[in-house]
């Protein structure tokens, strides 16, 4: 008898089945991962288990937890189990805490709800809990309000509340997705350690296979509200049997991890073509929901496949599951000197990703665009070649902010915060420059200054040898046309009341570009691989990946020379992220773009950039050709960044580089409007 046994869980909203009959079991002390893209119903499943569904959603099915059916017992009885026997950690550390209540009180409340303790005792215990989650100054944090803490600290606080009563089951919904890579790494380690020490069972929900594989023993893959594959983590990584899972494994393998072998820049990453229809739409699709994207589909797939066991402990919902691979994933990892990434990108080798594609024709990998000669012709020469034109450069940039947003609990900054502290940077024509840094590193400030949207406190910025810092807006017009930007949050940067085609045409109007705008919009839609009728839709009708394509199309509209991408793929699911990275690679070749690619994740930079600059606390700590920086990082900070990237099959905490000390505590850097 498992600890948690969910049977035929259906969650529906206004007739649409968002979660469509899920079975799920977690044994005592077991760690299970739930994988899926946004909209796959994975978070709803967890909320369904807790019976904390958003208003307007209802569920059926049985949820047996410790011999009681959570769906049948009274709300009062459920409340007494929540937080005591089963606890949950949510994704958004920003909004998960009550903004008007001190952190200490919120933690103490977790205790006082379930047992009678004096106020002083609860406070003592809260301080101990904060120490457990490795908060450095528990006393100060107890007195702080949530907005005074950094994202990592807030997530630790939420974790402290969850473990306060030593629950037997912990549900963690994307607990680290909103965090920087190094913070994510540390929070994951903490989670892993706590779960083991407390012998809790864990249901970890994530879009990132690498995160799940580092902690969990078993994994379930969800697609469109259904479980499509269920097996031990090692099994799934080595022999993914469902075509969707195979695609995910291939994508994750190529995105995560660092290899010592040279990286092939601008080579396509394996991805799954198309977009998930979303659970609501999928409930109207007859047959296998993955059919439209699946290379193995046959007429049989018009019938819905059921989750069935193919070998002991491996269940798949597919009529034509992939054969088990000859070479397991784990073996590849250690085989020869060749790193995984190399293998993943070298056709013909028996690597899961490649096999998956061979078995499922139609992966973007095989897309004919890549065979076009133009795709590689524009590959820029690496390193600082002074023969090339300097297109954008800055010298000794300093930007000071007033420390209005300084927090309690951290070191109070005396005087001004240095967002940028003497940054020199050169972008050559044809460069694809990666700027890597975490929140607080000053990378976003740097982006704004490079774009002429903000002024440096001192130092020079030049575009084509002309000073742009401090120039009046009118003088910047020419530059505005040649330098375009793509931001992180596509929904936030697109006007919700404008149609896609108007959004794309907007910069043409704004910059007074002549010509047939409709024709240009059609070209751009084609360039970013959106269908023509996408032009008539509104941003909220699109998926995250599609929105980012729209943002890219808009940026390309005035035929810029330079594209600045600020965290352009950070908010996207892993599978979509690979698609957008491929698109960037393709566009760079096709339009001979010079790109400044800003990210907190050094892993995503690797596929695009010929040069990398690593920023830490407003200073450049490392700079050089991508390969060199990634394979032989000199600064300990870069080493920490590299080690923190979650990798498929790498257990959380089993390090290759001694990073725990070297990694700077960006948890403790000021959380304010920097970076």
């Amino acid at each position, binding site marked *: 008898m498992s600890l948690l046994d969910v049977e035929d869980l259906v969650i529906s909203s206004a007739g649409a089945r968002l979660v469509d009959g899920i079975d799920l079991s977690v044994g005592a002390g077991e760690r299970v991962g739930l994988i899926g893209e946004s909209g796959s119903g994975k978070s709803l499943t967890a909320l369904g288990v807790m019976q904390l569904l958003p208003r307007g959603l209802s569920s059926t099915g049985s949820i047996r937890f410790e011999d009681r059916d959570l769906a049948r017992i009274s709300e009062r009885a459920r*409340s007494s189990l929540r937080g005591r026997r089963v606890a949950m950690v949510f994704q958004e550390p920003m909004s998960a805490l009550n903004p*008007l209540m001190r952190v200490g009180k919120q933690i103490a409340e977790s205790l006082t*709800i379930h047992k009678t303790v004096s106020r002083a005792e609860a406070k003592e215990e809260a301080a101990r809990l904060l120490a457990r989650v490795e908060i450095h100054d528990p006393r100060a944090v107890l007195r702080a309000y949530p907005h005074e803490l950094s994202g990592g600290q807030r997530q630790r606080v939420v974790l402290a509340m969850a473990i306060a009563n030593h629950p037997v089951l912990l549900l963690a919904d994307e607990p680290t997705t909103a965090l920087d890579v190094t913070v994510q790494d540390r929070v994951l380690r903490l989670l892993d350690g706590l779960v083991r020490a407390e012998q809790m069972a864990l249901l970890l929900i994530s879009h990132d296979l690498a995160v799940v594989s580092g902690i969990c023993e078993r994994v379930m893959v969800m697609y469109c509200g259904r479980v499509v594959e269920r097996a031990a983590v090692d099994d799934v990584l080595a022999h993914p049997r469902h075509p969707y899972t195979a695609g995910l494994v291939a994508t994750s393998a190529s995105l995560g991890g660092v290899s010592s072998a040279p990286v092939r820049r601008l080579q396509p990453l394996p991805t799954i073509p198309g977009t998930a229809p979303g659970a609501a739409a999928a409930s109207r699709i007859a047959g296998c929901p993955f059919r439209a994207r699946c290379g193995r589909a046959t007429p049989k797939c018009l019938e819905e496949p059921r989750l069935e066991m193919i070998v002991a402990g491996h269940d798949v919902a597919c009529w034509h599951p992939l054969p088990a691979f000859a070479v397991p994933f784990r073996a590849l990892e250690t085989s020869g000197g060749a790193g995984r990434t190399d293998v993943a990108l070298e056709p013909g080798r028996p690597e899961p990703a490649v096999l998956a594609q061979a078995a499922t024709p139609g992966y973007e990998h095989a897309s004919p665009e890549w065979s076009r000669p133009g795709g590689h012709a524009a590959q820029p020469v690496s390193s600082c070649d002074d023969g090339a034109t300097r297109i954008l450069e800055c010298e000794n940039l300093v930007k000071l902010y007033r420390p209005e947003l300084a927090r309690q609990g951290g070191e109070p900054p005396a005087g001004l915060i240095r967002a940028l502290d003497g940054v020199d940077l050169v972008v050559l024509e044809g460069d694809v420059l990666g700027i890597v840094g975490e929140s607080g590193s000053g990378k976003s400030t740097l982006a704004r200054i490079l774009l002429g949207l903000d002024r440096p406190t001192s130092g020079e910025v030049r575009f084509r040898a002309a000073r742009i810092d401090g120039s009046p807006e009118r003088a910047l017009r020419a530059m505005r046309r040649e330098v375009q930007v793509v931001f992180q949050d596509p929904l936030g940067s697109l006007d919700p009341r404008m149609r896609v085609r108007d959004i794309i045409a907007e910069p043409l109007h704004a910059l007074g570009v002549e010509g047939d705008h409709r024709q240009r919009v059609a070209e751009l839609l084609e360039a970013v691989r959106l269908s023509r009728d996408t032009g008539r839709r509104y941003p909220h009708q699109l998926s995250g990946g599609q929105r980012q394509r729209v943002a890219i199309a808009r940026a390309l509209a005035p035929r810029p020379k330079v594209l600045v991408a600020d965290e352009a793929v950070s908010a996207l699911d892993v599978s979509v992220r690979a698609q957008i990275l491929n698109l960037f690679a393709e566009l760079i070749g096709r339009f001979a773009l010079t790109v400044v690619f800003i990210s907190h994740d050094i892993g995503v930079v690797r596929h695009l950039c010929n040069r990398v600059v690593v920023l830490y606390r407003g200073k450049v700590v490392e700079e050089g050709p991508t390969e060199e920086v990634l394979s032989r990082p000199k600064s300990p900070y870069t080493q920490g960044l590299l080690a923190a990237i979650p990798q498929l099959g790498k257990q959380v905490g089993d390090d290759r580089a001694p990073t725990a000390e070297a990694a700077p505590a960006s948890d403790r850097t000021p959380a304010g409007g920097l970076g």
Partner: protein
Amino acid sequence: MTLAAASVIVFVVLAILPGKPAEVILGTQATPSAVRALTDKLGLDKPIWRQYVDWVGGIVSGHLGTSYISGQPIASELGSALEVTGPLVGLGLLVGLVVAVPLGVFSAVRSRRASGVAASVLNQIGIAVPSFVLGILLIVVVGVELHLLPTGGFTGWSDPTGALRSLVLPAVALGVVEGAIVGRYVRTAVLDVLSSDYLRTARAKGLTPGRALVRHGLRNVAVPVLTVLGLELAGLVVGAVIIENVFTLPGMGTLLLQSVENRDLIVVEDIVLLVAAVVLVVNFAVDILYHSLDPRIARER
């Protein structure tokens, strides 16, 4: 500063109003010489800036001046009027909150059920009905038909129960309408809180829905509602002017109307200035409360 601007505006507007006070006071039969004599006596022939300086100077030194008509010091007239209007507004606010908070919370919590929708509709009706109509209705039903409470007049505070009894109906008429308006804001704020992540966290800790809302919701609801309440209090004062006339209460509203009719300008000016001062004080109080409620704002100061 705001108060000074208000005083100037009030003074200028009233000065250019048609109808000379002296003529009105003495009636249509008055001889021109009598009018001139009175004008002289009241200081109305002085240049307008001089009149203004005299008035403000008086206020600053604590003298509100004397009424043109009754010759009484205005301070005492205002004082007795305040004894009625102050409690009326206070009671109205109380009634408003008693209406707004349960109605708003209920219609939000039950927003997906028939009872919540009904509460919401009731709320809308409350907004649509003007307070004086409600007042007349209350007079007819409670006062005339049922003989439960007095329908008008005021006996003074020497008889506290009698005074309170005569204030009940007007306060209800005033408060219900204001409460309905505030209730809408309460509903929106509660809906926001109900869908917030931190409330979900609170539920996940093991709080029952009701306790989660009380412990984590109410303070978060209070922040936006407080702002509205500050603005609505001004509306309450204006509403009181009308309601006092419906219930023939000798409050500020009645005094104001009389004084306007009689061109008793100094009284009008004093009342308007007083109301402006009250609104300012209230807004200041709201601001302070706001900062004590929301630590995020407090920090920015």
